[in-house]
């Protein structure tokens, strides 16, 4: 089904904004997505009508808030085809989800173990594991990357061994848009006895992973990348793993019984949800899932593929423009540079034209080191972007090129 983009754009109040006197062209979706009014209204409705603390209250508002929060968990469960709703932990986002798992694995690893990361991770899927290795003495191995921005799977096969306890890889690279072969990675890792964590922060706005079919051990994402609010995200973990992992933070909500001699912990998911959570965030995360499911991720993916194809073709017509990340399996992200021009300069001129792109290393310095560049300009498209906006981007880049050469 073709998307009615004109109608969809009506859902996003921010797209009517002017920036520097020009209509906003928002192409920084990989950093964060814009929010439809359905999500914004949900936040206003919560604070206007039923704001209360959840789970222990006997009064009506608390019941309503608890129901809405837990119903969001169910929506997420259904969306990702998760077997049990208590396998979903609400966190502050993908970063906290990763830290929770990394912290838990401290108890399982020692100096003879290895963990493996891909060369194209976001810093948030590198640093927590380096810290884990520092704590436990485990060795960090890296799955290298090829020139086209895809993973060297042959090297993965060679490095994977019975010493490997955990493999963590992003579903989609934030800097390049490459879709990684996570099915293959999960299968091979499992056959070798390693667990797998997939960072889905970049993926979930473009595709709909079926977590049972993937058989992945942990999957994390952030709501704000998929039309939800900032400050909330999820950790999916298989029940047996979540039972095994020790609690991450102590506090209210996560306990069964507390005495000064001993505290027993609450059951899943509450064991990992200490303190008053981001209640409205969780509820609005659910509203965002509803919104996306209503449009359909398949339809979104189909339209975004058209945007990507058009943008790639048009951008490559510009002299001296080089795209980084040219694998056949990629989402609507284009990382590029103009020959002899710093990405920062290009981003600054585009901003003056009302076009929002991201410049820099995109929190993935190892990728920039691989290509020996200081950074890139990254245009990332969402289902509410249009072909006309791509034309404006192309025009803007040409203008910047003239000014900066």
């Amino acid at each position: 089904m073709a998307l009615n983009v004109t109608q969809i754009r009506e859902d996003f109040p921010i797209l009517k904004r002017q920036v520097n006197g020009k209509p906003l062209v928002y192409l920084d979706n990989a950093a964060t997505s814009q929010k439809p009014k359905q999500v914004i209204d949900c936040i206003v409705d919560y604070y206007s009508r039923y704001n209360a603390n959840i789970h222990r209250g006997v009064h009506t508002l608390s019941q309503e808030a608890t129901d809405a929060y837990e119903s969001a968990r169910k929506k997420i469960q259904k969306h990702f085809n998760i077997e049990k709703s208590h396998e979903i932990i609400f966190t502050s986002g993908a970063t906290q989800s990763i830290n929770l798992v990394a912290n838990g694995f401290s108890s399982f690893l020692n100096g003879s173990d290895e963990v493996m990361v891909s060369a194209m991770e976001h810093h948030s899927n590198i640093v927590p594991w380096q810290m884990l290795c520092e704590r436990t003495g485990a060795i960090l191995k890296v799955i290298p990357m090829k020139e086209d921005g895809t993973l060297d799977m042959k090297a993965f096969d060679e490095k994977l061994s019975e010493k490997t306890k955990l493999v963590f890889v992003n579903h989609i690279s934030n800097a390049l848009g490459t879709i990684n072969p996570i099915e293959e990675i999960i299968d091979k890792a499992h056959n070798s006895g390693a667990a797998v964590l997939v960072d889905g922060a970049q993926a979930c706005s473009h595709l709909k992973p079926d977590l049972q079919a993937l058989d992945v051990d942990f999957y994390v994402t952030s709501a704000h990348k998929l039309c939800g609010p900032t400050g909330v995200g999820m950790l999916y973990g298989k029940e047996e793993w979540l039972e095994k992992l020790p609690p991450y933070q102590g506090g209210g909500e996560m306990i069964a019984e507390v005495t000064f001699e001993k505290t027993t912990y609450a059951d899943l998911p509450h064991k990992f949800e200490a303190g008053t959570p981001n209640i409205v965030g969780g509820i609005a995360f659910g509203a965002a899932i509803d919104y996306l499911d209503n449009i359909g991720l398949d339809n979104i993916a189909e339209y975004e593929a058209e945007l990507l194809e058009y943008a790639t073709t048009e951008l490559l017509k510009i002299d001296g423009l080089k795209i980084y990340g040219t694998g056949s399996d990629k989402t609507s992200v284009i990382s590029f540079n103009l020959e002899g021009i710093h990405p920062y300069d290009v981003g600054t001129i585009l901003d003056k034209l009302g076009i929002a792109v991201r410049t820099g290393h995109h929190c993935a310095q190892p990728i920039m080191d691989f290509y020996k560049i200081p950074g890139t300009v990254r245009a990332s498209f969402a289902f509410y972007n249009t072909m006309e906006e791509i034309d404006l981007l192309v025009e803007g880049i040409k203008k910047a090129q003239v000014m900066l050469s």
Partner: protein
Amino acid sequence: MSIKESQEELIEEFALFDDWMEKYEHLIELGKSLPMIDPSLKTDERIIKGCQSKVWLDATLEDDKVIYTADSDAIITKGIVAVLIRVFSGNSPEEITEADLGFIDEIGLKEHLSPTRANGLVSMIKQMKLYAVAFQAQLKK
């Protein structure tokens, strides 16, 4: 030229341009005309932290006046540092540490003052003033 006079001159100069594009083109020209820094001074210690692009800044004291030299791998950033050098360079450490930089707003570069802005204009000014403070201490000895 005093810091105040240089600022006034820049305000007048930038006022000649009507739109942002001409202003930026002028800024880029200023960046291109910035004298080359001695390549041996482009060391990691001279890189200003907090910039998305690389900025190397060096300062020397000549006849009790501070002389700055700089370079950047991004041309707009280089233009900004060129503007700052025009304002600061050749003045006494005391004048530099006490300088108020109202002109940045007036020449239409206010957006670069935001602390979230990755070009680190704020870091550049801080580093230039730090050099001046160090020279000030040196002169008092």
